């Protein structure tokens, strides 16, 4: 499971053991505010650096909502393009990441509204590449269940999650799959951290009750 390291000093790192993305900020590197300021003055390299820094988390948030790789890639690109053209209006009162996550969440929910479908991922929806990813993970792991069993299990979990409220589902995925801290989830969804904790607790209880009811 890939955990995404934080890109800004919001608190303690949420995933100390996670792999560091290629664009993660090195100690002493230029901070986001400076990069944003430069990008606002048409510095393309500065913006490219911002993309590299935040792409993993934008993918994680979009993936948590959309659950389809093709959609996630398109939306992530759309988010950064939109951010670039709106950057001059961004006054830096909030962190760049907060602003970017808001754009991401809004774009994703807009897409879902347009499609008017629930973001379910079934076996048939998985691209060849995703199937290959699962297969390669399987080979690396050595042994383990068959790929079709894993896809089936994944489908079953997606169905379980589908019974949750959109926000609760996103919270749970961001927390348990993408390795976000509670504070970060609160930032993405513009909620109080305690509200996030309470909702996570309820979402977990619902999932576990469902699993027990189905005897899975």
């Amino acid at each position, binding site marked *: 499971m890939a955990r*995404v390291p934080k890109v800004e000093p919001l608190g303690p790192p949420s995933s100390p053991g996670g792999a560091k993305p290629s664009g993660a900020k090195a100690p002493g590197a230029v901070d986001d505010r400076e990069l944003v300021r430069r990008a606002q003055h048409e510095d393309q390299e500065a913006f490219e650096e911002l993309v590299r820094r935040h792409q993993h988390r934008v993918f994680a948030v979009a*993936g948590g909502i959309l659950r389809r790789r093709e959609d996630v890639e398109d939306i992530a690109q759309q988010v950064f393009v939109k951010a670039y053209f709106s950057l001059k209006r961004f006054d830096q009162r909030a962190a760049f990441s907060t602003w970017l996550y808001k754009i991401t969440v809004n774009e994703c929910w807009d897409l879902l509204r347009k499609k008017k479908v629930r973001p379910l991922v079934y076996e048939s929806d998985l691209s060849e590449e995703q199937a290959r990813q699962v297969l390669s993970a399987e080979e690396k792991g050595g042994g383990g269940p068959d790929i079709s069993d894993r896809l089936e299990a994944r489908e079953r979990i997606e169905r379980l999650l589908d019974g949750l409220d959109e926000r609760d589902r996103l919270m*749970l995925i961001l927390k348990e799959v993408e390795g976000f801290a509670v504070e970060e989830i609160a930032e993405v969804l513009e909620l109080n951290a305690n509200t996030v904790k309470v909702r996570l607790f309820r979402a977990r209880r619902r999932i576990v009750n469902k699993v027990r009811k189905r005897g899975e």
Partner: protein
Amino acid sequence: MMSWLNRNRSKCREFRMQLEDAASAASGSKEVQELLARLPSSHKEHAAGCADCRAAAENILETRTLLTELPSYAGVAGPWFAPRVMAAISARRAAVGRTADTWTFLPKLAARVTWASAIALLLASGWLYQTPASTSAKPAVVTDITGEPLVYSTTPANNDEVLVSLSERAR
């Protein structure tokens, strides 16, 4: 009784808040005891006596195990992504530039169009001023139901009418 219930509820709430923090800190925990070990002793005592709070701790571990089957999308973003975004931005800028070019001719043309229309207006008004008024409008003739005019024309229709009018005037 009520105060005991309220106190217990607030303890549960407090425990769950702390539990979430403990779970975040111990992301690799597989046992409830590992999670509880990170909590202050008062919370541990509470967990020992509260089945709901123990269940909350178990739920954390159970959902965590369940969700490990789901792929993370954070890793999907690779080094190819930033250049792709920058290319999309360049394409969009070029498109915006082309649209802008299409409209830049308008201000230049606008000055000429203004002059041309001003001259045309001047000529048209001069021509209208010099042109004599054409035939005056005929007065409307009001007719009765049979179609006979109600207002008779002042000009005599024939010689007899002239004589009649002269005799009336002589009277």
